[in-house]
């Protein structure tokens, strides 16, 4: 379980909030928090049987919209995931993992549409609500609860 985001940048913290909501309550699944640097994400994916990733995105949808992508079946949409300053972000990390045959057999991305990414801004109420929903869905999906 990889929760991606910068806790100091408004809705970019969506993934981190999901980690917080999951706490230690995801069985023996390891919950990892990352800022989104591609090579680190890639290292986290290597050797995993299954990976669930949560990140904020910008696609023009309503703030707080939740989407689920099965990455084992296909690529993420080409834009929308905030690339790191290197131009290598989550989407690139996942495709690189696919090229390197390091993609976990099951790989699912939950994307939460963000609204504000200002420095020091709090999470938008809609994103905070979405983070709680995503945490519940992950619990259900992973633990079958």
């Amino acid at each position, binding site marked *: 379980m990889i929760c991606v985001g910068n806790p100091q940048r408004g809705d970019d913290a969506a993934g981190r909030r999901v980690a917080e909501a999951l706490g230690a309550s995801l069985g023996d699944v390891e919950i990892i928090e990352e800022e989104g640097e591609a090579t*680190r994400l890639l290292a986290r994916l290597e050797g995993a049987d299954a990976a669930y990733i949560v990140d904020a995105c910008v696609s023009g949808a309503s703030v707080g919209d939740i989407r689920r992508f099965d990455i084992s079946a296909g690529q993420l949409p080409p834009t929308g995931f905030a690339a790191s300053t290197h131009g290598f972000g989550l989407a690139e990390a996942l495709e690189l993992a696919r090229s390197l045959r390091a993609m976990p057999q099951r790989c699912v991305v939950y994307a939460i549409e963000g609204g504000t990414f200002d420095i020091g801004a709090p999470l938008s109420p809609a994103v905070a609500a979405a983070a709680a929903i995503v945490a519940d869905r992950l619990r259900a999906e992973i633990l079958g609860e």
Partner: protein
Amino acid sequence: MNVKTIKVDQLARVEGEGALKVIARDGVVQSAELNIFEPPRFFEAFLRDRMYTEAPDITARICGICPVAYQMSAVHAMENALGVAVDGPLRELRRLIYCGEWIESHTLHIYMLHAPDFLGYAGAIEMARDHADIVRRGLDLKRAGNSIIALLGGREIHPINVRVGGFYRTPRRRELQPLAEELKRARDFALATVRWTAGFDFPDVARDYEFVALRGDGEYPFSQGRIASSRGLDISAAEYDEHFEETHVEHSTALHAHIKARGPYLTGPLARYALNAASLSPLAREAAREAGLGTVCANPFRSIIVRAVEVLYACDEALRIIDNYEEPERSAVDLDARAATGSAATEAPRGMLYHRYQLSADGKIADARIIPPTSQNQPSIEEDLKTFATAWLDLPDDALRHRCEQTIRNHDPCISCATHFLRFEIDRGG
């Protein structure tokens, strides 16, 4: 007169956004312009009225790839203003964190941005499908650089542990030991990288650059040394403004730097190597020799090899520093604010980075000047295009575009530092 225009809307695998326009008439390239259209970023103005202690953290934000360079130029310039020299283990730790930045930044460029040009791939993701082991090696090597920055800087991007006078916290010896193990493996990968890149096919071109870099006193330079050039310049950072000037050009929001009354010059790996090759570690020197680099490399396409040699050096140097490290008694030296002006140049991975600050008596920044390497290299990149592209005008459009892009990537421009980058347009006049 024949006229033909090729437009390319996205130039990939450089940092930032902008455009390139090449104009050719009757089979000869007349001009090449990097049109940088990202708005200026006003960092120099942000710094005014902030405390001198804030400069390393504010300027680190100019670049996500070379924040350490910005921090190092800032702290050295401030210490220069305040009349303090940081020495001993603190100086060594600064070299160590700079090693980390060279390793991660150069390796990113070599493996992810530049190598696909030579091997005929659209990018690293495509290259990884056929060369998984090589890309893995690159990622492992880069990770070693990130580990150094994370340990000394507190985190990998925009580190937070660097301060004027030293660090907020210095590591214990035992904390460095796992890093040493990782760096030993990285050094093997770096040597393999030199050999790998040396085997690429390179266009047989060269230019008579005026190379400008720090010249270290017997050490390959990161943060200290005089500013030297291959045509005899030898000045302190304080004299930079007397010898260099920046001018605005209409097609770019980044300023262009020149040597006064002389013109364009080149900073970066080729320049550092030309002026300091003798100061490389024996292993890096031997690898450079084996790769056929000679004492000067004036073929910018071969800069990928020089970068690989510098990565090897940085691994070697980092291991030397860790091996000799003695924990300092204090993590930073004391400083007293005073009205003063200070300047410093350090060696960012892609070239020399100059900072100058004027401080008020209360330690607030009255004026700041930052000249990033890409501003300095832009005129030379345009000259490269003018010089080399004429011979390529008979190539099909796609191939020509690719060669021009590659010519820019040779210098690893960080347009997000200089401002940002790239679209491509060629008017062949044909």
